[in-house]
């Protein structure tokens, strides 16, 4: 290990010297470009997607996140499991949760919030910003949870199910794409309408 480092270090240090003394040594770890001088991590969506899909398969294969297949990541079902498990064990309310979270609840959603907070703090992107259109977003969240549980998965798990070869994944993926097209068209329509109103008034 030390021999290879000794082999590469003079090259990187000469590059650094040529760039005006800035430390530009780039370490590639799982596709992340980590620059030690700025302490910033830049990841492309493709790399993040590959890591997400692969590790979702890993937790299913070796960490018991199964009976429902392709259940490694789901941002609708895992919160449902967590809340319903807590309701069942603390308040004795019998609400359904999956067999994967029978003994302990799945904590994906807690991890996502913690990870995003750490990333935002580390890169100076974490500020409390004032809210806008709060009731619109409230209703959107309410409907998203209900439609997601009617479908039985979130847009991430639908992609995992499609990779698994499940017909539900393919049908759900097509329906989600159609729904996104309809939603975008309705946003366009409402924007045009408000622009026309603004023009006449």
């Amino acid at each position: 290990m030390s021999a290879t480092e000794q082999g590469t270090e003079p090259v990187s240090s000469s590059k650094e010297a040529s760039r005006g003394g800035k430390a530009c040594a780039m370490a590639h770890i799982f596709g992340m470009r980590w620059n030690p001088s700025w302490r910033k991590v830049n990841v492309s969506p493709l790399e993040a997607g590959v890591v997400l899909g692969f590790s979702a398969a890993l937790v299913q294969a070796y960490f018991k996140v199964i009976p429902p297949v392709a259940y490694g990541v789901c941002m609708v079902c895992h919160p449902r499991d967590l809340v319903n498990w807590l309701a069942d064990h603390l308040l004795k309310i019998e609400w359904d949760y999956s067999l994967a979270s029978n003994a302990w609840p799945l904590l994906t959603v807690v991890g996502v919030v913690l990870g995003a907070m750490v990333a935002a703090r580390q890169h100076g992107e974490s500020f409390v910003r004032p809210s806008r259109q709060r009731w619109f977003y409230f209703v959107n969240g309410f409907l998203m949870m209900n439609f997601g549980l009617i479908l039985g998965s979130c847009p991430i798990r639908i992609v995992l199910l499609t990779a698994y070869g499940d017909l539900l994944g393919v049908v759900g993926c097509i329906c989600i794409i159609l729904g996104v097209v309809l939603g975008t068209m309705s946003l366009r329509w409402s924007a045009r309408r408000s622009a026309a109103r603004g023009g006449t008034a």
Partner: protein
Amino acid sequence: MTAAVATLVLGFVIGYLGQRSRLCFVSGYRDLFLIRDASLLKGVIGAFLGALAGFILFGFMGGSIVGFPMFLKTPGLNSVSAWLIAVIGGLGVGFVGALAGGCPFRMHVLAAEGKRTYWFYLLGFYLGLIFYNLVTFRILERITSLD
């Protein structure tokens, strides 16, 4: 316990990467349709390919990848009502996701960044869960019992 710790660690990793890369599974389709930009859609394709590679690899290595290439068979879609429910759910998720501007994963990341708008989204999200348990779940049971 294993599953809880594994999903906590996995959640931390994907939350971190999601904040850095703006990965979103609804904006990918929306950007392609609206502004012909496929950069976010590459994340969706990457997740598909990564999951496929993982399922094949861990299936060969003897992990618990049960009945992996399902070849479009499914335990879920076995009746008319199941098809109806899947189609309504899928269209609803896509429509609402396009209106809100992202999938639930992206909304959790944005809320963690401190944007209060998305705190209200999450408030609605978890109240929606209680509503689902009390009302929607019962309605779905009625519909599936009609078959």
